[in-house]
């Protein structure tokens, strides 16, 4: 059958569209010029400016603290949720599934706003603590979905076999379930960490004045047009980190598949 020539043309155009801004940004990060309208020679000055900026380092530290905390908590909650959804069929699990699934479709803005209202109503101090609670909340759903997909991939009779061979419940979890789940857990953790590090909207609503994370810092730099070329440099570094993370998670998920 003669295939339409449209799809490949559109695909090529879409890929150019997706990558053009990123490529221009990356090129400008090495441009000596301040406004990036013309090329004035190769330079690392924006990288040096970025590395010398104490506020950015503080924001990075806050992002890492929240990211690690939210990743660990959401891994525990999300894995347990996935096991519950996988093993049990009941009305409780239908409600559970709806609760796990809904945060994936709700716009960030609404989640940030509703959490802000909750924290204000409870009289909580806005800061890194509330950011951690908010990030864990949206990460749980992503972790649960990734781990659930992994659980659906393997044969449940392995666990029964282990029980029949005399393993206690804790031994089954530690020696059979966790090793089988490990790649899925690592991929879920990586996803949760990336989402947490990247989140701006929800963080902006619940952070309060002191708790500046990296995206909040980038936003205020853009909004007040301060240190703009340094954002180019920062985005190249973040792009490199993203690329590594995507590759790692693909490796983890595809590793032992045929």
């Amino acid at each position: 059958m003669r295939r339409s020539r449209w799809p490949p043309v559109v695909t090529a155009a879409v890929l150019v569209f997706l990558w053009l801004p990123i490529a221009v940004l990356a090129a400008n990060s090495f441009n000596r010029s301040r406004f990036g309208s013309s090329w004035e020679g190769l330079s690392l000055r924006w990288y040096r400016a970025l590395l010398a900026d104490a506020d950015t380092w503080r924001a990075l530290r806050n992002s890492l603290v929240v990211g690690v905390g939210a990743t660990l908590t959401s891994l525990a909650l999300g894995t347990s949720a996935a096991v519950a959804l996988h093993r049990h069929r009941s009305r409780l699990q239908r409600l559970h599934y709806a609760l796990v699934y809904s945060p994936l479709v709700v716009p960030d803005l609404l989640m940030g706003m509703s959490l802000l209202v909750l924290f204000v109503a409870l009289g909580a101090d806005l800061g890194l603590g509330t950011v951690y609670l908010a990030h864990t909340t949206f990460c749980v759903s992503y972790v649960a979905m990734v781990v659930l997909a992994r659980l659906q991939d393997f044969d449940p009779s392995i666990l029964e076999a282990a029980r029949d061979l005399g393993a206690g419940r804790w031994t089954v979890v530690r020696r059979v379930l966790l090793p089988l789940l490990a790649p899925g857990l690592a991929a879920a953790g990586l996803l949760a960490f990336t989402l947490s590090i990247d989140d701006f909207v929800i963080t902006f609503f619940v952070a309060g004045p002191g708790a500046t994370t990296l995206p909040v810092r980038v936003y205020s730099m853009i909004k007040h047009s301060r240190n703009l070329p340094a954002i180019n440099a920062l985005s190249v570094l973040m792009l490199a980190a993203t690329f590594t993370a995507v590759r790692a998670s693909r490796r983890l998920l595809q590793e032992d598949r045929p």
Partner: protein
Amino acid sequence: MTADHLRREEWAVTLPSLGWLLALFAAPTLLVFAVSFRPADPYGGIGAGWTLATLREMARTPLGPVIARTVRLSALTTAICLALAIPCGTCLARVAPRRQAVLLLLVVVPFWTSFLIRVFAWRMLLHPEGPLKRVLVTVGLADPHTQLLYSEPAVLLVMVYTFLPFAILPIYAAAEKFDLALLEAARDLGAGPWGAFVKVFLPGIGRGVLTATLMVLIPALGSYVIPDLVGGPGQDMLGNRIAQRAFSDRNLPQASALSAALTLAALAPMALAALVQRRPPALEAAARKEAA
């Protein structure tokens, strides 16, 4: 294992996530609706007692243009994303496996890149002194006074850019499962290329198209950062109004009332999708009856 035992085990693995999400997702969502009926207190908090004053005040502010712009931009974004994602997702599903892995990676990496940085990149490109303007002026498509940034088309462009991968991935997944022999059969039975595409292929990947629509439309309705950074003061969407009420005016009840309205607006396409999804079995039954 006894039933009682099993039940206890179920609760043990369900309770942590169930409790967390009830407290930090379900409760706050409902709270937003409740706070719409509370007065504001002068310190940016929530006052005591119940009132309809917030809603009455909202009715007095002219929100019509903002709501119209929110709906218009979200609908246009969804339509453009689908128009690009259907050919693109189809193409990704058809190429050889080795190339497919590379192409998918090329779609996914921008999608994983920091959202703010992608918006920032567009600000640089659309800047009055930026590269895109210079190219357009050189080619003669724009005169030196054309304003690219801070306009409604700029908001639309960046929204399409941001949400496009959300549309491509579900359509690719559906197209990958679609049996291409069906298209050949349709052609053999006398359908033209357009007829085969509309009557056989589109219904075949229907679920993917529906998922893509929801994945683009719902977050688009809640856009806030894009109009804030590439739109001008006249390009506010509902999201910007919510943020203004919450941060500049420090009026949480009014921000809540607007959020409640936006929640209902986001639920509408979901409800519609649930209705549409019930239809395919009916269609199938009709087709079977016809065949018999």
